[in-house]
């Protein structure tokens, strides 16, 4: 790798919270207990649309230990916060008798023990007036919303471009609903303390939970404190304060005791978002030599009846390639489904499957090597903004990846390579995950002993934020790693954006940079002599500590004259397909990533490997199935919803190329999603190469491969 390294930066140091995690001592929200804590369980709707006629609770109340049963009949009216950068929070739960999706919470049962709460919840009898539900993405009864994010893109004249093309490839690609399924069952523990509220919540964004819950109960924000020092994964599911969070606080208020609610695995499929299914229509026109002359990408996706989700799908086409004529449009269709939400590489996971599959098909039609086709249309500048990239080493990703993978050994003919009964195929995809940054605050404090504390409301969901921020601060302050402590996951700390959108390392890192520089400057003003320890400076000036808050703000591309770059990557995949059984094995994957400056190569590699495995799931396993009759999720368990297991995953090669990004002082680019983007199309392209079967629907399952 070529990332620049300072004394403590870039070094592949072990995860600083590793010792706690391997000892089972890291405190997750589900591990929190209060004396006299009660437990809540939910009753969920068994229909997808209609009204509640009656809720019979007599049998449930008879269960020993039951403290309260809360329904729309007795729940107080709750407020709704203003929209965040991700859109408005979910509508407040239990506010009326309407049912908008199967699995919607219709009652909360609070009891002394979790066993009592679960039993009582099963004994609640709900009768419904059932209405026709819109469940299918093709259902015209679902209202469709064009350009839902205002991010649709257009340039040139697509029809003219297509008319001018020598070859036009047109196809429809579909992707299934996928469910985030972090291993940690989302848990909220709510404890009212006077007029204030303390929450322990499996959140990726404590500041947002505080805002949502404060608005729900009409509280000033400072009276809500949200703790999430450790989170059992999120992958986007923890970006919003979902209804169970508000209901935990409500239950605690009703029973006047701390209340814990832990979602069941089936509830994790209906209550905390999912990656929405898409139907994408692509028209791509090219000249005989491979020059792209038109791209039209129209992406239809599902969304809930009365909730929203920011999921730009067709955007991959807008900034992926140099092409004069482009139209990229998103459409959302409102359905009676649990609300989708971000899931690792939101929008891009689906969009890159369609675009990178279409380019592969075009390459075969043009008889041009798929890698060559991509390089021929390489976007030297940002195709939509017309500005130079702040950094882009995608060409190097392609070259290094082709070399390490052995791309040139590929026989370009389909179904030409075999290994015994296995058909062997090579596929690739080139991808980016766009830049995303919002403002972020941090506090850096030098104590009397000369060590430093770095504090932010941000969360570390397993990405390594604790570790890389400790490294970064140590480097900037000139301290040893062991002299810096990082405190995260507490909404009383300075405001932070979400651990999501590949945006936190940049936002928080730049804030840490500003704060550390200010601290060092202040020490200079205090007359620090060369080589003098911070402790001595403070002692000499009679100070017990020196503290600075700083805020990073996203740079303005127009002011800087640069297009902000996200990470880039080239993905190379070898698949083996059993010629008779259709079984697919991922034999090897080479990922080459331009992630800007890499703060810790060991952890960065883990991020890419993890994203890649998420991509394997999307490619060949994951499909959340909705029963067409009832709208019920039919496979809401780990026994039925398949995710990759150890035996499904080969060793994965990761190489970092490129250098620090020019946009910000830290030079990092987020790498949380780039590992996933592009894996599904690279697998699909490899499956085509192996078998001659073009699968345009994810996941690529045995039945789809064996269909005549």
């Amino acid at each position, binding site marked *: 790798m070529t990332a620049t390294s300072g004394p403590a930066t870039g070094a592949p140091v072990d995860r600083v919270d*590793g*010792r706690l995690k391997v000892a089972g001592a890291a405190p997750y929200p589900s591990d929190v207990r209060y004396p006299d804590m009660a437990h809540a369980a939910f009753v969920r709707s068994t229909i997808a649309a209609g009204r509640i006629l009656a809720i019979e609770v007599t049998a449930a109340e008879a269960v020993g230990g039951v403290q309260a049963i809360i329904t729309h009949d007795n729940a107080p009216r709750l407020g709704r916060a203003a929209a965040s950068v991700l859109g408005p929070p979910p509508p407040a739960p239990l506010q009326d008798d309407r049912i908008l999706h199967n699995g919607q919470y219709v009652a909360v049962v609070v009891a002394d023990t979790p066993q009592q709460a679960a039993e009582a919840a099963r004994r609640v009898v709900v009768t419904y007036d059932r209405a026709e539900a819109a469940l299918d993405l093709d259902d015209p009864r679902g209202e469709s919303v064009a350009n839902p994010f205002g991010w649709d893109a257009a340039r040139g004249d697509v029809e003219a471009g297509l008319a001018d093309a020598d070859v036009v490839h047109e196809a429809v690609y579909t992707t299934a609903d996928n469910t985030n399924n972090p291993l940690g069952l989302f848990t909220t523990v709510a404890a009212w303390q006077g007029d204030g509220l303390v929450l322990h919540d499996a959140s990726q964004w404590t500041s947002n939970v505080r805002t949502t819950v404060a608005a729900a109960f009409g509280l000033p924000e400072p009276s809500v404190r949200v703790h999430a020092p450790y989170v059992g994964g999120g992958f986007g599911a923890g970006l919003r304060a979902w209804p169970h969070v508000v209901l935990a606080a409500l239950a605690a208020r009703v029973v006047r005791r701390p209340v814990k609610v832990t979602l069941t695995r089936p509830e994790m499929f209906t209550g905390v978002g999912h990656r929405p299914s898409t139907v994408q229509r692509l028209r791509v026109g090219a000249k005989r030599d491979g020059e792209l002359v038109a791209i039209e990408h129209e992406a239809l996706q599902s969304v809930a009846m009365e909730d929203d989700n920011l999921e730009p799908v067709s955007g991959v086409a807008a900034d992926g390639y140099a092409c004069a004529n482009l139209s990229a449009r998103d459409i959302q269709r409102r359905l009676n489904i649990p609300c989708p939400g971000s899931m690792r590489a939101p929008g891009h996971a689906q969009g890159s499957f369609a675009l990178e599959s279409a380019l592969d098909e075009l390459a075969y039609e043009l008889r041009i090597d798929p890698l060559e086709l991509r390089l021929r249309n390489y976007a030297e500048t940002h195709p939509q903004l017309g500005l130079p990239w702040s950094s882009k080493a995608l060409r190097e990703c392609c070259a290094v990846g082709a070399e390490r993978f052995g791309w040139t050994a590929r026989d370009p003919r389909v179904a030409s390579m075999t290994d015994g009964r296995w058909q062997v195929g090579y596929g690739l995809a080139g991808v980016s995950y766009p830049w995303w940054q919002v403002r972020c605050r941090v506090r850096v404090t030098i104590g009397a002993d000369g060590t430093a504390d770095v504090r932010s409301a941000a969360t570390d969901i397993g990405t390594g934020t604790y570790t890389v921020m400790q490294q970064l601060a140590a480097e900037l302050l000139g301290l040893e790693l062991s002299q810096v402590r990082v405190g995260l996951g507490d909404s009383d700390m300075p405001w932070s954006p979400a651990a999501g959108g590949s945006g936190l390392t940049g936002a928080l890192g730049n804030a840490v940079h500003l704060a550390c520089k200010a601290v060092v400057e202040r020490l200079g003003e205090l007359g620090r002599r060369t080589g003098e320890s911070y402790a001595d400076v403070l002692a000499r000036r009679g100070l017990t500590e020196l503290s600075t808050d700083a805020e990073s703000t996203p740079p303005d591309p127009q002011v800087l004259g640069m297009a902000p770059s996200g990470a880039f990557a080239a993905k190379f995949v070898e698949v083996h397909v059993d010629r008779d059984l259709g079984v697919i094995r991922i034999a090897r994957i080479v990922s080459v990533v331009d992630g800007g400056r890499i703060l810790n190569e060991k952890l960065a590699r883990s991020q890419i490997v993890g994203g890649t495995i998420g991509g394997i799931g999307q490619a060949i396993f994951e499909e959340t199935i909705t029963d067409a009759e009832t709208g019920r999720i039919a496979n809401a368990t780990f026994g039925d919803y398949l995710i990759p297991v*150890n035996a499904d995953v080969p*060793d994965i090669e990761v190489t970092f190329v490129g250098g620090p990004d020019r946009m910000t002082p830290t030079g990092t680019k987020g790498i949380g999603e780039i590992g996933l983007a592009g894996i599904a199309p690279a697998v699909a392209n490899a499956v085509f190469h192996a078998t001659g079967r073009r699968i345009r629907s994810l996941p690529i399952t045995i039945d789809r491969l064996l269909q005549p």
Partner: protein
Amino acid sequence: MSACSVTLRVNGSSARLEIDSRVTLLDALRDHLGLTGTKKGCDQGACGACTVLLDGRRVLSCLTLAAQSDGREVTTIEGLSGEDGELHPMQAAFVRHDGFQCGYCTPGQIMSAVALLEEGRAGSDEEIKEFMSGNLCRCGAYPNIRAAIRDVAQRPAT
């Protein structure tokens, strides 16, 4: 509900509990003994996060009633480290090889890995893959988990 009396012998200590007969070993460990290192990832026996050793064999504590464990020897993640806090070689190898990210499945992975070695199933990568496939990791640490297990398996016994 009916109550029952159970003696749990966990990590060398013994505790007598009067509990609801429906309480699983997992909930007994977490909610009654305060041993929260063992995690609940599905409560359906499908993810392995709750793996503990029962009389030396790996079991899913969410599918094992506390009452079934009466008088038997339970080892949890908290029982792996030495009394001085020194990590078990498998724990240390997981840190060294970054065999986790969020850390939630990790106690279960480590308990499974420790049992795997006892079972003599860590002879090859293929074996490790197969016999660690009952422990899901959504962060995608599998290659690093294999590296950690290989590392420990290949060391001379001390």
